[in-house]
């Protein structure tokens, strides 16, 4: 059976761990095949649990999060006959599938929507804390917004300074409020559980929020402009499905806008908020990113953001 090992935030982090779980769950429901899973509490458990799964014959073993990189390098080498998959990092081993997302590209599209929806000319982004991955979202978002309106003001405020920040919806709400106070009318949350506080505060003020990772449009219909989808669930589902169907490949899969691995969510909940113009702008940018005409800078390549 396949197995999933979640990253530190835990299975229900309202973010990519939960997405992984959803993908695995969907696979399990469709095929009737169960899957093993484990939530780590300390970093030392990574290797331990992964090895335990491998020893007990789990196959493939999938892990979300680049924090698994070191672990998978070690354990995958010990179990050459087991297949592994890692999301968000590249591990160049013959039995490892690497799945990476271009969060910056999807965030770019979301940034376009935010800039267009803003009436005040001020928008915001709320990452949980100063962390490269979260900064990549924020940086893509800023580039997208600036592409629509070079004069737009973008507020960028962290909730906290460590992983605790993911669990602080009260802080998230207050940060959102501080941005609203300064005139922001569209706010993108990149803060896991704390992001719920952001969306709540924005909805309470009857402004627009943007969800992240999974589709959060339904949380406050009419007050969530869109969600920046990162299809970890699809990647997980596909990995398990590929293995089941005998199509497993140990390659590097990059999921950007072109692959529809990332991008804004459109559904009945935000139908009224998205104008045709906005749709068109997103489609145009999507095409340009796909063709390479637009290259969205990835914060992680140089730890800095051009805008």
């Amino acid at each position, binding site marked *: 059976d396949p197995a999933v090992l979640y990253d530190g935030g*835990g299975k229900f982090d309202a973010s990519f761990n939960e997405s992984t779980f959803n993908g695995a769950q969907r696979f399990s429901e469709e095929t009737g095949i169960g899957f*093993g*899973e*484990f*939530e*780590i*509490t*300390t*970093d*030392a*458990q990574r*290797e*331990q*649990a992964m*090895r*335990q799964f491998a020893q007990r014959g789990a196959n493939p073993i999938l892990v979300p999060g*680049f*924090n698994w*990189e*070191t672990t998978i390098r070690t354990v995958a080498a010990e179990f050459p006959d087991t297949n592994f998959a890692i999301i*968000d*990092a590249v591990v160049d081993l013959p039995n490892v599938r690497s799945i990476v997302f271009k969060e910056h590209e999807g965030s770019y599209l979301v940034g376009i929507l935010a800039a267009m929806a803003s009436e005040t000319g001020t928008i915001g982004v709320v990452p949980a*804390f*100063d*962390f*490269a*991955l979260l900064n990549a979202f924020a940086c893509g978002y800023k580039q997208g917004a600036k592409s629509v309106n070079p004069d737009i003001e973008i507020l960028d405020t962290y909730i906290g*300074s*460590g*992983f*605790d920040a993911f669990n602080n919806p009260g802080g998230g709400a207050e940060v959102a409020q501080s941005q609203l106070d300064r005139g922001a009318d569209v706010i993108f949350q990149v803060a896991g559980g704390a992001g719920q506080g952001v969306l709540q505060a924005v909805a309470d003020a009857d402004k627009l929020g943007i969800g992240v990772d999974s589709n959060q449009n339904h949380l406050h219909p009419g007050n969530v402009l869109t969600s920046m989808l990162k299809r970890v669930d699809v990647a997980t589902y596909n990995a398990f499905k590929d293995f089941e169907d005998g199509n497993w490949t140990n390659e590097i899969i990059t999921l950007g806008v072109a692959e529809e691995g990332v991008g804004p969510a459109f559904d009945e909940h935000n139908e009224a908020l998205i104008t045709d113009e906005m749709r068109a702008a997103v489609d145009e940018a999507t095409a340009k990113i796909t063709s390479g005409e637009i290259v969205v800078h990835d914060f*992680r*390549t*140089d*730890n800095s953001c051009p805008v």
Partner: protein
Amino acid sequence: MSARVPLPAWVDRILLPVLNVSLAFLIGGIVVLLVGQNPLEAVQIMLYGAFGYGDGFGYTLYYTTNFIFAGLAVSLAYHAGLFNIGAEGQGYIAGLGVILVALWLNGTHWALMMPLMLVAGALFGAFWAFIPGYLQAKRGSHVVITTILFNFIATSLMSYLISRVLKPAGVSADESARIEAVTRVPQLREFIPFFGYSPVNLTFPLAIAALFGVWFLIWRTKFGYAVRALGFNPTAAHYAGISNARLIMITMALSGGLAGLVALNEVAGVQGRLILNFMAGAGFVGIAVAFMGRAHPIGVALAALLFGALYQGGQELAFSMPAITRDMIVTIQALVILFTGAMGEMLRPPLERIFARRAPAVARPAE
């Protein structure tokens, strides 16, 4: 009310704690039953996982290492009458010292590096505790607040340093560059294959040495004598010519140094790099360990082992019984702290009734 007769030593020191732990597991077992699992099997899995085989035991000892250092840190300060809530932050900052030295001389053999990294970690940890000590001694700022605040400051500082300074570009994780294998503190499994893949490393014997060291320091040196005098009665210490202010600063620094050794285990022994939040609450567990161990190294060792076993056994349990989540493990840990620590005296009266000798107590002459 009947006369209270002291319990025989073995009942007091062994039977009572054992009964307390059993009680905690009994209540924990009810929780396990509630989720439809077999509590006996759960206990068996935990015990086997923690002690039953090399890997598991090695993990237990690895956790124990952290808890010994953190527990000793809190204990030492406590003997001087200081409540150090800041072991978490002190250990975190110590990680910086360890990694700086390790990366600076990366590739040097561990035999040379281990003492250097140890000293660096201890110094950084000591520094982070010295400031609250200084503020307490010279400005009267309550060490409880300052150490709490220093934990928060450490988080911010380390977040900045790891994400913005130490993180190599092009790496997705927010972590420092790696320490080379020759430089890292070697794993015990390299000498004792019994430990399987477990991360217990040479820091563990160091922790045992620290237990002896702290015991010696507190009960066999003039310094320790002064520390205890200060902790029990600062006025008497002053009368004895002891400089309270100086002693507070030194003790806090030593306490922080001990907390800093957690970083040696984690950064140089296990992770091989500096990652965010590697302390993962070990400093707070240290508070429970210190108080449950009554600030005595033997007690600290046992309490640290108990927590190490709970962490490792809990992992095995969560792994083998998917219905039992990591939150239940935390709950069971809480019950153990509650019953063995805070409510440790609950069973004393009934035991006293059982063990009360028939003959009336031998009266000590009143004078």
